[in-house]
């Protein structure tokens, strides 16, 4: 239980420290150190879990099982790599005059706080705290998105705040309903908001209330997942914030929101004994895939484009979890992991590319491999990984999802095919000339941090060809927990 405390305490403390000295030249290093500490703690925790199964902590307020432990590890890892990426990136931004001292402080401290919120949301056992953490994560990211204080960034942040605020309010109503349903069945003295208790009693929960609750929860957390048609905040927030934030938004926040949805789905399925929740998720998933794919075609801003691709991928995952079954759930979890890795890697590469070209408009970024082959190849390979080219992990999960969809929901398969095909055409036709061809971009002042890019891509590659035993073990167990 000590590593758990560390996981939560480190970023919290870090945010305080960085709020004081984030503007100092080595603030960015301190940031890295804190993230690394969090990462180490998460490694300890995972080893603990590997050794001795699920654990409770702080009289059952915290709960680590195989469904969230790998998400904790993933979050900590990407939090760490992103902090590494932020070092040169934010420095260059500062020299471009986009960041003042105060903004630097705000940025670093909020970055740590954001990590804290997400880790809290992942580890807590209390549905109420889960809601609080999600809301807090929204607030921190709002500040991070608006950190440049440009009109565009403010507009994006405002929309993000209002839409996600309203959405998350629905989630609160859902939580209240959940609580209401729980009160009837759970003995007094037992906390009816703890997921573990709810899960134990889920078959008793009143189906009518649960159905209603799930609708509110799905709309609420679904807004943060970026499910169409609740997705409108997502492209703006991704495109206008600093690139590291786009990376963690796509890589982590969406995952955590989806994780919340899954937790709720488990309870709802238990209460309803039918596939209601699953069908809703399938519908949202397919809609998001189509909307994401077709929106890709019209993009000119590179970060905006990749945020739409995040919508598409979130749709695929939601579809998979909605479909349920051991294979689909397994694939969904795998997709969560690999998408987080590859998408953040792509955003790292994109960030450097945009800095080199001095713009995010794709027509003006050309021939990257001429100037810096690493960034160019990073972008190219990352894009191919995102587009589901083997042997990267996304292909593995899409393989499982599509093949099992072909039998469970044959009518959905052509929709997915259409979505994937359109997405491929749209993204690749834009990335190709950015990487290849004659160039117009200029080299950077500071060496780009490409370790994160290739680390992530390497992991994604590994997961496509070989999934470690314990990870597989987790996935299988988690898939079993999700059931459906």
């Amino acid at each position, binding site marked *: 239980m000590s590593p758990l405390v560390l996981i939560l305490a480190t970023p919290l403390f870090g945010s305080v420290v960085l709020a004081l000295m984030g503007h100092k030249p080595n603030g960015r290093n301190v940031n890295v150190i804190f993230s690394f500490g969090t990462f180490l703690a998460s490694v300890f925790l995972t080893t603990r879990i590997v050794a001795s199964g699920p654990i409770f902590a702080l009289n059952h307020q915290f709960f680590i099982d195989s469904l969230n432990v790998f998400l904790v590890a993933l979050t900590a890892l990407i939090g760490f790599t992103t902090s590494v990426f932020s070092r040169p990136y934010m420095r260059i931004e500062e020299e471009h005059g986009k960041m003042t001292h105060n903004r630097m402080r705000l940025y670093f401290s909020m970055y740590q706080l954001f990590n804290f919120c997400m880790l809290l949301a992942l580890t807590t056992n209390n549905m109420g705290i889960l809601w609080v953490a999600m809301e807090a994560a929204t607030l921190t990211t709002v500040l991070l998105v608006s950190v440049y204080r440009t009109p565009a960034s403010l507009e994006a942040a405002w929309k993000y705040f209002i839409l996600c605020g309203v959405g998350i309010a629905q989630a609160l109503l859902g939580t*209240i309903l959940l609580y209401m349903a729980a*009160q009837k069945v759970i003995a007094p003295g037992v906390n009816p908001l703890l997921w573990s208790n709810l899960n134990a009693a889920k078959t008793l929960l009143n189906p009518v209330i649960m159905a209603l609750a799930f609708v509110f929860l799905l709309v609420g957390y679904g807004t943060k997942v970026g499910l169409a048609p609740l997705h409108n905040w997502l492209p703006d927030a991704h495109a*206008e914030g600093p690139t590291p934030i786009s990376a963690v938004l796509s890589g982590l926040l969406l995952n955590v929101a989806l994780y919340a949805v899954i937790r709720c789905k488990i309870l709802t399925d238990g209460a309803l004994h039918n596939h209601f929740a699953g069908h809703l998720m399938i519908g949202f998933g397919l809609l998001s895939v189509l909307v994401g794919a077709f929106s890709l075609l019209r993009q000119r801003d590179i970060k905006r484009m990749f945020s739409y691709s995040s919508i598409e991928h979130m749709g695929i995952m939601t579809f998979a979890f909605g479909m349920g079954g051991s294979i689909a759930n397994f694939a969904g979890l795998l997709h969560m992991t690999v998408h987080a890795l590859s998408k953040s890697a792509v955003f790292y590469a994109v960030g450097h590319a945009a800095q080199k070209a001095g713009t995010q408009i794709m027509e003006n970024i050309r021939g990257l491999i001429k100037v810096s082959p690493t960034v160019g190849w990073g972008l190219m390979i990352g894009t191919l990984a995102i587009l589901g080219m083997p042997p990267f992990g996304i292909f593995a999960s899409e393989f499982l999802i599509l093949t099992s969809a072909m039998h469970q929901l044959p009518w959905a398969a052509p929709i997915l095919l259409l979505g994937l095909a359109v997405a491929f055409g749209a993204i690749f036709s834009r990335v190709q000339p950015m990487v290849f061809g004659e160039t117009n971009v200029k080299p950077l002042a500071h060496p780009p941090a490409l370790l994160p890019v290739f680390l992530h891509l390497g992991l994604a590659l590994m997961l496509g060809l070989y999934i470690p035993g314990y990870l597989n073990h987790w996935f299988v167990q988690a898939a079993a927990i999700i059931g459906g």
Partner: protein
Amino acid sequence: MTELSIQLINLFASFLLLLAFAMLAQRRVINLVNIYAMQGLTVAAATGVVAYVTHQEHLYYSAAMTLVLKVFLIPWILRRLIKRLDVRWDVETLINIPSMMLIGIVLVVFSFNLALPISKLSTSVSPGTLGIALACVLLSFMMMITRSKALPQVIGFLSMENALVFAATSATSGMPMVVELGIALDVLVGIFILGVFMFQIREQFESLDISHLENLREE
């Protein structure tokens, strides 16, 4: 005794609904803030009653907290914002008031028969209030949709949050304290951030009319 308290809670509930409609119909920002404060008061009172009935002392705290936060602190902040930003003028709505009212009534009916079966099952002191809470949520949602200025939107958001708290206390006789605290904290931080934002939006766009915030779009 409990009979009376239940009637009281139902009274507060209907009062809340009334206020929601009033907010929908209200054009002046400053009045919106006042209505919001009244909502806060109602919620606080209702919470107090529930606390008295169910003898949960943590509900007294939450009642007090609501009182401080939503009757004094936040309205005060809002008033200062209005003064500083000088946005005392009338708010034109995107849909005209009568039709909004009509839609509002439809929503109320809808949410009532949505909540009906649940209220039947409810074990809490006043089962009927859930429908009203739901209606209030939807009404404030609609208000957010139909207002084209930043501040009214925020107020709509806050009133929605009020309705939620009311739902929590009346329908489930109170969430656990830690959750209540968390919610309150989030709301407080949120309002501060919004306050800061509005100044920046003001200086970037020379107005708080969010119809200016339409540059991020697909051409």
